[in-house]
């Protein structure tokens, strides 16, 4: 277990006071910190610990403006080397997330600020109370001080019965949202086995049509991360692909971007099937085709039903 490191002191000023929800602290010169790192302050008044998440990190000097810095560099001489290091410091803005004794008084000016170790991070995020029976690995949290902590979801709220939804948002094209979902589905499958059925609607070409196969490009470091999370670094089990019907025999009647060799392999191992809607079988589901079409006068409704 890594140890806590003293990295700075709380700075409460007239303009930027500490509050119940946030505080600021200046960092020692050799500190490396990242946004979303967890830090803690020991409160001497009741020996409780206040935990916070770093929101942002700033660097300030005693220069009053850009002109001051320009003048200080011999009036714009880029080759000037200052003889004295300008009075400067880095400080971080922190949001309070937890106090061990439910004491939310603002942290005091001058209080020592430490980095959090693994146990501290578990406590700060409420992970020390999670039920291992329903916990599902969510990923590894890596902090600026090289602490790596497995984070877990409460499965009851992820896949039920208490709740069952998750929203992942991000910039498109970075191959992170889908990758994360696939990791999470693997973790769920590993945890819940046959108690959970996973249905994936594929809109991504053939990227997700190899989930039954091992990843040849995975590195040892990545494999270790899976091990740290307790999730086997292995392909999905019991996978079945259902392709929409296409009237093309040489494509095995499958409407897919998957290469024909891979398709043949899947059909041969009975992992793939085609699906088609027929009049006799699916006529009573036709109204679902028009489910998102506005029908204020019940026109389609009256035809279908």
């Amino acid at each position, binding site marked *: 277990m890594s140890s806590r490191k003293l990295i700075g002191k709380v700075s409460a000023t007239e303009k930027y006071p500490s509050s119940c929800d946030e505080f600021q602290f200046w960092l020692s010169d050799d500190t490396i910190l990242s946004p979303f790192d967890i830090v803690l302050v020991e409160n001497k008044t009741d020996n409780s610990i206040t935990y916070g998440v770093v929101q942002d990190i700033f660097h300030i000097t005693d*220069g009053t403006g850009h002109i001051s810095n320009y003048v200080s560099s011999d009036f714009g001489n880029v080759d*000037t080397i200052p003889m004295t290091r300008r009075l400067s410091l880095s400080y971080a803005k922190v949001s309070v997330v937890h106090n061990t004794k439910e004491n939310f008084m603002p942290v005091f000016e001058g209080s020592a600020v430490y980095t959090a170790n693994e146990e501290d991070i578990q406590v700060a995020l409420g992970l020390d109370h999670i039920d291992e029976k329903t916990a599902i690995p969510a990923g590894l949290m890596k902090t600026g001080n090289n602490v790596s902590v497995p984070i877990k979801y409460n499965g009851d709220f992820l896949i039920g019965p208490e709740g069952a939804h998750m929203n992942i948002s991000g910039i498109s094209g970075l191959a992170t949202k889908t990758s994360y979902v696939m990791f999470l589905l693997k973790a769920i499958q590993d945890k819940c086995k046959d108690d959970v059925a996973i249905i994936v609607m594929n809109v991504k070409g053939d990227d997700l049509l190899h989930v039954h196969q091992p990843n040849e490009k995975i590195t040892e470091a990545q494999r270790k991360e899976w091990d740290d999370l307790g999730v086997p670094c292995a392909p999905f089990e019991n996978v079945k692909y259902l392709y929409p019907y296409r009237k093309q025999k040489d494509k095995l009647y499958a409407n897919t971007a998957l290469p024909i060799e891979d398709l043949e392999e899947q059909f041969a191992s009975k992992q793939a099937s085609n699906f088609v809607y027929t009049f006799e079988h699916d006529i009573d589901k036709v109204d679902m085709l028009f489910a998102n079409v506005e029908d204020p006068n019940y026109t389609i409704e009256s035809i279908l039903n």
Partner: protein
Amino acid sequence: MSTLSEIFDKRKITLYHNESLDLDHYYQEPYQDDGDEIKEMGDPFETNKSKKKRKIDLAVEDRTYSGFSFFMDGSRRTYKIGDMVLDGKKIYPVVIAQVRAGCTERNTQKKLHAYGEVQRKNLLLLSDKMNDVDFAEIRQRILKTKMAQALHLDVVTYHFDPNKDNVPVNAAIAKANTMMHDMEIDILGKMVNSGTLEPDRMLIVDGPLQFIRQDTGKPEFADMFYNVVGVSKSFDPMLPTSSKAKRGGTQIGAELLKLEYGERTPVFLKENSRHRKFGCWYLRIRPRSRVSNPLEGIIKIEKMAVIDDEDGLDSAVVDNICLSILNEGSPTCYGRDERWASHLYPVYLTETLIKSSFESDLVFINNFKRDFK
């Protein structure tokens, strides 16, 4: 429980508290070289006897070098809290003061740190026209109180000379200044004794090397200042360059107008009342085009002459000092201090450190209005 007035009352001296006056804002700060006089001489007080200004060629010199690693400053805040009446006839101000002195050191990462602790003294200044017995008794009573102990207070006298001081408060301020210089000499003495100062780790003192009272008159006193230089941000531009100025000769300000960036005057000789010799010269550290008036950006530098400097300071040493000071020109305190053009940044930081150790004016003054237990 006695208030200050009651302590004085016991000796039949009446102390009238008044609306406390912050003397530092009331009286205009004199030039740092106030009282200086350049000794008339034929040749400059340096080994290069040319009477012309000298230029430090910054194009060829090492701009990354500074021979200075230590910076010393002292500061004081004075307040008039009342007047006391002696023998029912004469009235003198009662002044209190916070006096600080300290030194900083620049490390190899170019960062400034405090060198030792900031020396602190809090003073109650009374006129020396008081009867000695009265003064001793009042002093003893005050120093025994918890308030005085908490404040680390000392009670001292000041001497008002109508020929020298315009008003008695000036005499009190001068006394506070003298005690500040005492503290600076203490710090300097410790640095010298510990072998801290060296020719490439010299000390800049903010202001002139005016340590007259502390000057023993012996050669050893000058040895303390071997690696010390005084730098004044402000100076009297009407200082005569010789006694001829009294009959219409040149004043130093007129000479300084000719200085360009990186140029210095020849070294002038200055002697104090103990016949201690100093070499002093002026150096322009900011281009004339970059300052708002032609005398801005010029500093006065002085160095005490040691035994070897009987014929003048070594010009190479003087030039080296000038180069170091020019190299100290970056960064600046532009925007923070209106004296930025003449205020070297490490000296500014030292001043900031020392001034941060002052108690707030209101809190300090009100200590003397409360009960002295």
